[in-house]
């Protein structure tokens, strides 16, 4: 990767620091695809040094107070797109209500990077390995996209369309992430396999399920770094849905997930390893989520 690093930012651009969402959207409307939003810059500046993107205009959204918040309400939690990961990691509400998301954030990059990086940037960068994506998908989170002509919302699951590609249209930006409260007796977990904590995942997985009597319901399993976008393992989910989560069944669910994914071989891992490790971590994550329900009730 470093081979292509120019060690400078080899392009000139206009730089703007809007103070409101409205101003940012007007700039986006004016500049169209020549503009890039700058949030934490931890992905974007690296890409600019590598000449992978060469915007003519940068719109820094870090100075917009109305994009930086964590609000706990009756139906769920709303998070401003420019909220820093470090702030989310310190939020009691996130830790209590969405432990899989909390875990994912705590093990991303380093403290220094988490002081800069935002949750919106992690989603909009649309890396197949983005660590916040699988937890947000299993919790049924939605993103709010805004442009000068209005707003729309979309499930996080439908936001990613390919590596580095999202459903955002030119002129749109991500303003908010909404995560619904989970039903009582829900357990969830996140596991990441990487070379070091700083590294992007070879594979990451988040699961969530609700226990009724002895059986698992609302089973959701989402994986990253195993397909062109973060994905749900729907066949694996269906195999567990409505059934008692026995050891044999959990292992079987891991195997089904491992067949469902479409991994490639790249600098971080081989396709074969990704398939093998998926079997194990899907079952492990389900065990952890179940343990959480059995011990703590709501989680």
């Amino acid at each position: 990767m470093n081979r292509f690093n120019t060690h400078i930012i080899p392009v000139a651009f206009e730089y703007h620091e809007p103070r409101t969402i409205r101003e940012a959207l007007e700039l986006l409307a004016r500049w169209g695809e020549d503009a890039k939003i700058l949030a934490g810059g931890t992905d974007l500046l690296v890409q600019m040094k590598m000449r992978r993107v060469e915007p003519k205009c940068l719109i820094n959204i870090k100075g917009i107070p109305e994009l930086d918040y964590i609000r706990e309400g009756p139906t769920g939690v709303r998070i401003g797109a420019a909220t820093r990961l470090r702030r989310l990691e310190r939020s009691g509400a996130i830790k209590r209500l969405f432990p899989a998301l909390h875990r994912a954030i705590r093990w991303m990059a380093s403290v220094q990077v988490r002081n800069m990086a935002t949750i919106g940037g992690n989603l909009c960068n649309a890396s197949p390995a983005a660590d916040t994506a699988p937890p947000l998908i299993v919790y049924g989170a939605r993103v709010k996209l805004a442009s000068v002509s209005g707003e729309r919302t979309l499930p996080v699951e439908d936001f990613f369309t390919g590596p580095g590609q999202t459903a955002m249209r030119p002129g749109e930006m991500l303003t908010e992430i909404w995560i619904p409260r989970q039903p009582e007796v829900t357990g969830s977990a996140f596991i990441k396999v990487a070379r070091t904590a700083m590294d992007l995942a070879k594979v990451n997985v988040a699961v969530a399920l609700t226990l009724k009597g002895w059986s698992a319901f609302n089973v959701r399993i989402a994986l990253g770094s195993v397909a062109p976008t973060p994905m749900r393992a729907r066949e694996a989910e269906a195999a567990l849905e409505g059934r008692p989560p026995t050891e044999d069944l959990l292992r079987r669910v891991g195997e089904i997930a491992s067949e469902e994914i479409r991994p490639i071989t790249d600098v971080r891992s081989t396709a074969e390893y990704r398939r093998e490790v998926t079997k194990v971590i899907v079952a492990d994550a389900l065990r952890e989520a179940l343990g959480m329900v059995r011990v703590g009730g709501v989680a």
Partner: protein
Amino acid sequence: MRAGGGGIVVRFTLNGREVEVTTRPNATLLDLLRNELKILSVRRGCETGECGMCTVLVDGLPVRSCLMLAPQVDGRSVTTVEGVGDPERLHPVQEAFVEAGAVQCGFCTPAMVLTAKALLDRDPNPDERTVKEAILGVLCRCTGYAKIVRAVRLAAERVAGGVRE
């Protein structure tokens, strides 16, 4: 603020002093500090956010200066290791680094000291795991980290008068 491809004026507080520099919007904070302001304790390493050599404190928080644009510090406060004690009167963190022998080649030391200072400013009594987590983002190729962790805990003892086990 607004600027074209040419010059841009950035005003900020550097180690407690007001500075005003004309630079380019596409200069990183690292470029600004090293090239314009000649602060060479801020090292140029990987330039991709991995090694932590370029760490500075912005409004008291450790960040990567290689991943920030110069205009992003307009109106803010930047601290480099020059703003942490001086040769006559070392900061307790610096004293502890000397005493614990936590310095070998010294390349990572400014970044380590800043990271440790920011940690202790917020959490004067960190456990070992918290110390390790804080310095995980700063790579040291010499010491093996044990002495650095010891130095940070020694500094904590001095500052707060105690450490947790």
